[in-house]
C-alpha cells in the first residue's frame, strides 16, 4: 500500500500536470505545503516514512476530490486535516495490534497530544520544520542519503526530479530514500530540535547537506552542463528557510551569504556556447546585484551575531571580497589570503590549502603560490582532484614554464567528469603548447 500510493502520486503528477489546471494547482500546492505537512505528521507519528505516506495519501485524496469539487479555500489545512484523520486511524490500529509494546503506547499518547492541537500556530510549524530538517540530515545517514531525503521531504521534489538533478538512475535515488527512512526508524532517531552542544554538531550536518546540493548545481561534477541552476535554487531556498527558522546561528547566515554571492555569478560563469568562464575572466556587469546585496546582508547578519566567524561565514567573506571588487584587478588578495588562513585554522583541509595557494599566488606572485601547491602534490586525498593540476598548470604558465603547464592541464582534463570543464582544460593545454612554441 505504501509504495503504491507514492507511485500513484508521481504518476498523477506526470500524467495529470499536462492535462488539467486543477492538477497543476495541486502540484504547486503540494510544493508549498508538503514539507510543513510531513513535518507536522512526523511530530505526531515519530518517523519520516510514515509521515510521508500519510501526507501522500492525503495528496491522493486531493487529486481525487479537488478536480471535481474545486480547490478548498485553505488547501494546506485541508491536507493536514485529512492526513491527521488517517494518522489517528493508524495509531489506533497500532495501539490495538501492538498494545503490549510500551513504546507504541507512548507514541500514541504523544500523538494524541499532538492531534489535539488542531490548527498549529506559526511558531510550532517552524519547530516542526526544523525538526524535520534535523531528522532528514541526521549524521547517522550517509551524505548521499541525507541529500536525497532532504530534497524529497523538505524540497517536495519527486524521486525523478532528484535523479535528474544528480544524473543518477531513478532506482538509485528511490533506494537511497527507502534505506534512509529505514535507518532512521531502526535507530529510533527522535523527531526533535536538538539543544546545546548537540545542536551545533547536528546543524553542521544540515549545513553540509545544503551546501552539497548547492555545489552540485554550481559546478556539476558530471554530465554535459557546467551548472545546473535548479539545484542551486533548491539549496538557496532551503538555506533561506533555515535562516528564518534558526536565526541565531551565525553559520546559517554565513552559508546563506556564501550561496547568495556565489549564485550571483551563475549567469556570468557560463559562456555563449555553455563553456565555463572562470571567476577572474567573468564579465562582472553580469553578476546579479540583487543576490550580491542579499549575500552581503546575510554576511552582515552573521557578523552582527558576534563571536569569531565560522568556516561558512569566512568563505562568504572571501566571496564578498570578489563581489566588492569592480574589476578583477581591484581584488583585495592579501585580505583573501588572511581569510583563507582563518579558514585553514578552523577547518583545515587540502582543498582549503589549494585555494589559499591560489590567493597567495595572486597576492604575492606565482612563485609563492607554486611553492604551496608543490607541498600538496603528495597529498593522497588530492590525488584525483582535477583542480590541483589545474592550479599548478596556471601558476607554471604564469612563470613561463609552458611545457610543464601543458602537462598539468592535460592531466587535469583527464581527471574531470564534466564535459564542459574538460574542454576548457584541454583548450588551456593547447594554449600552453602554442605559447611554448612561440617562447
Amino acid at each position, binding site marked *: 500500500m505504501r509504495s503504491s500510493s507514492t507511485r500513484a502520486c508521481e504518476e498523477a503528477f506526470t500524467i495529470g500536470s499536462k492535462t488539467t489546471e486543477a492538477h*497543476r*494547482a495541486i*502540484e*504547486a*500546492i503540494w*510544493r*508549498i505545503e508538503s514539507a510543513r505537512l510531513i513535518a507536522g505528521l512526523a511530530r505526531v507519528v515519530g518517523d519520516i516514512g510514515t509521515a510521508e505516506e500519510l501526507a501522500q495519501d492525503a495528496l491522493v485524496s486531493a487529486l481525487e476530490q479537488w478536480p471535481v469539487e474545486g480547490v478548498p479555500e485553505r*488547501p494546506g489545512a485541508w491536507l493536514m486535516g485529512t492526513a491527521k484523520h488517517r494518522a489517528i486511524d493508524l495509531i489506533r490500529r497500532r495501539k490495538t495490534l501492538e498494545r503490549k509494546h510500551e513504546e507504541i503506547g507512548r507514541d500514541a499518547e504523544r500523538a494524541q497530544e499532538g492531534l489535539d492541537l488542531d490548527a498549529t500556530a*506559526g511558531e510550532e510549524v*517552524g519547530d516542526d520544520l526544523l525538526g524535520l530538517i534535523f531528522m532528514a540530515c541526521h549524521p547517522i545517514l550517509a551524505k548521499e542519503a541525507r541529500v536525497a531525503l532532504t530534497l524529497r521531504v523538505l524540497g517536495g521534489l519527486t524521486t525523478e526530479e532528484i535523479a535528474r538533478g544528480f544524473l543518477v538512475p531513478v532506482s538509485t535515488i528511490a533506494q537511497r530514500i527507502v534505506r534512509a527512512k529505514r535507518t532512521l526508524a531502526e535507530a529510533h532517531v527522535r523527531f526533535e530540535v536538538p539543544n546545546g552542544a548537540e545542536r551545533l554538531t547536528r546543524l553542521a550536518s544540515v549545513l553540509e547537506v545544503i551546501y552539497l546540493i548547492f555545489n552540485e548545481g554550481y559546478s556539476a561534477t558530471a554530465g554535459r552542463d557546467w*551548472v545546473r*541552476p535548479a539545484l542551486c*535554487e533548491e539549496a*538557496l*531556498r*532551503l*538555506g*533561506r*528557510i533555515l535562516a*528564518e*527558522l534558526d536565526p541565531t546561528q551565525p553559520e546559517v547566515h554565513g552559508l546563506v551569504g556564501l550561496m547568495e554571492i556565489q549564485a550571483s555569478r*551563475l*549567469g556570468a560563469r*557560463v*559562456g*555563449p556556447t*555553455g563553456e565555463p568562464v572562470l571567476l577572474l575572466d567573468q564579465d562582472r556587469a*553580469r553578476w546579479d546585484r*540583487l543576490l550580491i546585496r*542579499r549575500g552581503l546582508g546575510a554576511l552582515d547578519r552573521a557578523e552582527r551575531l558576534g563571536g569569531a566567524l565560522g568556516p561558512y561565514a569566512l568563505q562568504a567573506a572571501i566571496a564578498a571580497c570578489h563581489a566588492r571588487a569592480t574589476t578583477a584587478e581591484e581584488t583585495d588578495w592579501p585580505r583573501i589570503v588572511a581569510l583563507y588562513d582563518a579558514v585553514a585554522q578552523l577547518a583545515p583541509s587540502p582543498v582549503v590549502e589549494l585555494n589559499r595557494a591560489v590567493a597567495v599566488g595572486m597576492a604575492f606572485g606565482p612563485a609563492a603560490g607554486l611553492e604551496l601547491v608543490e607541498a600538496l602534490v603528495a597529498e593522497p586525498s588530492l590525488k584525483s582532484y582535477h583542480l590541483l593540476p589545474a592550479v599548478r598548470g596556471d601558476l607554471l604558465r604564469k612563470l613561463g614554464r609552458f611545457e610543464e603547464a601543458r602537462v598539468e592541464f592535460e592531466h587535469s582534463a583527464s581527471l574531470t567528469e564534466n564535459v564542459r570543464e574538460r574542454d576548457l582544460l584541454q583548450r588551456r593545454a593547447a594554449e600552453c603548447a602554442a605559447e611554448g612554441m612561440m617562447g
Partner: protein
Amino acid sequence: MRVLIMAKEGEQTEAGTPPTPEAMAEYQKFNEELVKAGVVLEAGRLYPSSQSKRVRFEGKKRTVIDGPFAETKELVAGYWLWQVRSIDEALEWLKRAPYDGGTFEVREVFEYEGM
C-alpha cells in the same frame, strides 16, 4: 525561476491614503509567511503617480511628463520579486494574499542569459 508580481490596486493607492493598521498587519503577516518559505527576494511599495515622472522616447527626442497619470487601473503600486519553482506556485501563493481588490500581474523574469 523568478517572478515579478506587480500590484495594480486602482483608485486606492492613487489616493495616497495609507492602508489601515489592520490591513497593514495582515499584509505583514502574509509577507512574513512568504519570507519564511524562502520565496521573497525583494518587496517594495511605490508612491502615487502624482509624485512620479515618465520619460517618452521618440527617436533622439526625450520628453519628461509629470504625473499623475490617468490610467489608474494599470498603475503599479507595489511589487514583489519571488523565487518560485513555477508560475503555478506563484499563483497559489498569490491567491493567499490578504487583498480584497485590485489586479496583480505575475511576470516571469528572464534569467541566465547565455545559457
